């Protein structure tokens, strides 16, 4: 038996979303159990099952938020300030 992680997706709009896990002997049975357990009332129109031991998990440290890379963000405040200043100087 293998543990499978189950992902479902709705209506072509959203991303695939992890909804839980199940235990099954084969890929085929895993898909059947995913449908019976997680898609009982049209919760999604697509399903992925992935064996848990096939999921590659990155260390938390590796994906820590990049607090030292502020240049990757721009909150727009500086631009707004300058735009306002420019508007006022033209009046």
């Amino acid at each position, binding site marked *: *038996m293998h543990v499978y992680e189950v992902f479902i997706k709705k209506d072509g709009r959203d991303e695939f979303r992890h909804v839980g896990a*199940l235990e099954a002997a084969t890929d085929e049975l895993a898909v059947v159990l995913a449908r*019976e357990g997680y898609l*009982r*009332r049209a919760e999604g129109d697509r399903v992925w099952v992935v064996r848990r031991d096939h999921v590659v998990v990155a260390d938390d440290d590796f994906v820590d938020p990049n607090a030292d890379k502020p240049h990757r963000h721009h909150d727009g405040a500086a631009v707004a300030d300058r735009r306002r200043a420019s508007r006022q100087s033209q009046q």
Partner: protein
Amino acid sequence: MARSWATMEDFEAFLDGGGLVEADDDMPDAYRRAVFAFIEMHANSELMGALTERDWIPKTPGLRHKMAVLAKTQDEIGHGHLLYMIAADLGVKTRTQMLEDLFAGKSRFHNVFHYRAVTWGDQVAIAFLVDAAALISQQAVFKNCSYGPYRRILRRIITEEGFHMRLGEDRMMRIAEGTARQRGMFQESLDRWFWPALQLFGPDSVPDDELLRWRIKSERNEVLRDRWVQRFVPMLQSYGFTVPAPDLRWDTEAERWDVGPIDWEPLRRTLAQGGPDSARRIGEAADNWQHTAWVRAALSDGNGSGA
């Protein structure tokens, strides 16, 4: 391990800050065991509830309701699956160990599934009153539970329990609109099931309840129980039934229903030594587990794929 905490104080500070614990976190052992025991009991209750429901599939009146009962039984078995899965991920017991403990009579499940459902009226009372009590408890856990996997799986369970509760109310209304004999039958069922349903919430929470401190539950038992009382006492009365509480009164000052003193002895006795129907229910579940061994063997063999 994703995260770890040096001391219980650090862990509790993390919880107090609204932190969510995940399955691969190195959580304190006491927390792991507490959250495991809570989910295991919920899983057992779903499964034992499903088996009760299953008993009534052949006896359910009308094809539409029979189909709905079939779907509900499947839902409850499904909830058992989902919950046993996240419980097993805590690494305290495997899914098979949990099931074997349950069928050996070593595990706990909700008090209501230790009593016998005698008539269709009983089954309706259970579907209406007990499912509602379970739903109120689960909603309170879902709202703020510190264990992430449980909280996420509760979202789907609660959605489906909502269907069950409406189905229960639908059946109750049909009986309420029925003949004097049907109404009499339901009143008798109410007399049998009102108190066990109310006791599903358990006695008042102790002041230092660790389930509350660790946000495994987020509301006190008495608060949840009162929510149920305030909703179901007037509802049952509006359908012309009598709430079987001799000391029931409307507290004009607090503007609330007061059911009077609660006798907790039946609950204590049931949880300690089982109830009138425990042996039969557990025995039948255990027999069923044995008789279906070949199905599990066939499924785990995986059709010769070498799995």
